[in-house]
């Protein structure tokens, strides 16, 4: 398909932008060459975007069980509230007394999410998950530094963690200590006991973890770290499985981030914007990024915590994402939030039960919101890999599950159906998965070359990684 620069012709134009209402200003430095702007009419532009839409698969097109990403359907009412002009036409620099509604919205959401997290304070400044992790680990660092405890240089991360966890610890200047998982996919308590010590700053953990299992030793895990003087950070990537059912704060965690764009109703996957709300226990509040929204005799205003780590983003975070989260929390209510989590777990267990006659599961027993299949045996017997099966799904208009993650499972496919899918759809999908499994034995060749019906066929991922073409080169 043609890029926007390759369409239209000199002189084609559109009138979507309002007339300029500020005086023109002559810059001292002027461009010597004209800007490469596309010359298209409104009609051509509309067709271009519609053509792009036909080439993608989003959650509005069909099943999207991308494990660990929680690609659930987000109710349209959340979008509607976020686009209210009272919210969208705010300026971040306008006086606080003229933005009371927006401040109240943040204040209520902070209180509600604090309840879900089991935390005493919440900031909405971080722009997304990894940014939230960075903020949370900086709180841990500020706590130790403030106490003069500068010998704590290590953060413990289990080998099943998301890659962002060790990256975050390294960004915060910590040395990463990787500990192995036990045969049930959980934290190996002996390995943890051996790893902690006076140099332990903290532990970063996802629970349920990346293989979709709730660690039954969680209270012991956080106790081991606390006894060594470290703090515990909860990566909220998988919060959708437990929200309203069990609180990270009650598991012994000291701070947490939650990807509002996964769990609390913002569509994602297109590069944002997201929100990585960070919660902490009362003793860490004084290190939080400022400003925090506070209420004083019915008025809302800002407070800059006493020993704040400083701002992590301009202004107050991605505000309209917070409005969507608030709408979601208010429409579901206390019962609805936990029901959503329970249905997410039920759906994953239903699909796992339907599939386990053919597919090997990486771990025995019930799962949480996602499960991991290992296609090692199928690969050995037929030469058809997890990648081939995933590509085959595209021909059935299904988005594939997460592939080759977590790294501790070979030929992994990680399925997270989410609570928003029906039994009928899951039955249909399981039928297709089983058909692809059988095809691996009867017609492996067709899977090696899949997909066959998509706008682009099998992509040369190796070529793209070895020789990436990252910019469009205009003809001179």
């Amino acid at each position, binding site marked *: 398909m043609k890029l926007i620069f390759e369409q239209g012709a000199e002189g084609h134009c559109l009138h979507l932008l309002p007339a300029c209402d500020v005086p023109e200003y002559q810059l001292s430095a002027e461009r010597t060459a004209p800007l490469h702007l596309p010359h298209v009419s409104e009609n051509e532009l509309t067709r271009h975007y519609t053509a792009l839409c036909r080439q993608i698969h989003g959650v509005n097109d069909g099943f999207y069980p991308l494990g660990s990403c929680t690609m659930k359907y987000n109710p349209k009412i959340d979008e509607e509230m976020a686009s209210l002009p009272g919210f969208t036409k705010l300026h971040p620099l306008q006086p606080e007394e003229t933005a009371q509604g927006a401040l109240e919205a943040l204040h209520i959401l902070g209180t509600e999410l604090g309840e879900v997290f089991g935390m005493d304070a919440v900031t909405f400044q971080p722009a997304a998950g990894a940014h939230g992790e960075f903020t949370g680990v900086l709180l841990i660092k500020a706590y130790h530094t403030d106490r003069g405890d500068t010998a704590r240089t290590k953060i413990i991360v289990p080998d099943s963690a998301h890659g962002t966890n060790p990256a975050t610890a390294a960004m915060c200047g910590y040395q990463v200590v990787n500990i192995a998982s036990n045969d049930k996919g959980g934290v190996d308590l002996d390995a943890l006991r051996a790893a902690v010590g006076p140099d332990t700053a903290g532990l970063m953990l996802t629970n349920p973890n990346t293989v979709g299992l709730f660690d039954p030793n969680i209270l012991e895990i956080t106790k081991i770290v606390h006894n060594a003087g470290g703090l515990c950070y909860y990566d909220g990537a998988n919060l959708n499985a437990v929200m309203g059912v069990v609180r990270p704060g009650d598991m012994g965690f000291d701070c947490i981030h939650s990807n509002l764009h996964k769990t609390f109703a913002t569509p994602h996957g297109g590069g944002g914007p997201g929100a990585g709300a960070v919660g902490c226990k009362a003793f860490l509040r004084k290190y939080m990024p400022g400003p925090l929204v506070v209420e004083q005799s019915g008025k809302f205003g800002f407070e800059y915590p006493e020993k704040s780590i400083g701002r992590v983003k301009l202004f107050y975070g991605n505000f309209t994402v917070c409005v969507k989260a608030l709408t979601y929390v208010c429409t579901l209510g206390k019962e609805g939030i936990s029901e959503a989590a329970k249905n997410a777990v039920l759906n994953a267990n239903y699909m796992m039960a339907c599939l386990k006659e053919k597919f090997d599961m990486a771990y025995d027993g019930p799962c949480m919101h996602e499960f991991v299949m290992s296609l090692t045996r199928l690969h050995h017997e037929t030469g058809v890999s997890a990648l081939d099966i995933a590509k085959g799904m595209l021909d059935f208009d299904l988005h594939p599950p997460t592939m080759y993650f977590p790294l501790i499972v*070979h030929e992994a496919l990680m399925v997270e159906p989410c609570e928003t899918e029906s039994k009928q759809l899951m039955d249909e999908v399981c039928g297709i998965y089983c058909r692809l499994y059988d095809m691996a034995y009867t017609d492996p060749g067709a899977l090696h070359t899949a997909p066959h019906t998509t706008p682009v066929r099998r992509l040369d991922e*190796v070529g793209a990684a070895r020789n990436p073409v990252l910019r469009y080169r205009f003809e001179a």
Partner: protein
Amino acid sequence: MNFPAELKYSRDHEWVKMLDDTTALVGISDFAQSELGDLVYVNLPVAGDDVVAGETACDVESVKAVSDVMSPVSGRIAEVNEALDDAPELLNSDPYGAWIFKVEDITDFAELLDAEDYEAFTKEEH
């Protein structure tokens, strides 16, 4: 799958070729490259840095994932194979020719297996 008899192997799937008593070349085994798939980037270590047996020395990236390369020996990096900067695919096409780094002043070794035991170990891994 190829397991040259003159090499020693770690359980983390690196091979070691001793050049003299305290100098060795290190690379990843045929089994390792086949499991990782097409390699697209090698993050080489830095000459002069110390490496510790059993600890991460550098990493390699395939389309599937980034994986650590553990040093099978303790010593100092004498040289790195810069050809891998432009041609990481050499690790796939010639895993035993494409060494990754050379270690000198070796003081310690991880537990190393001979070719026969290593081949048996890779079968267990499956």
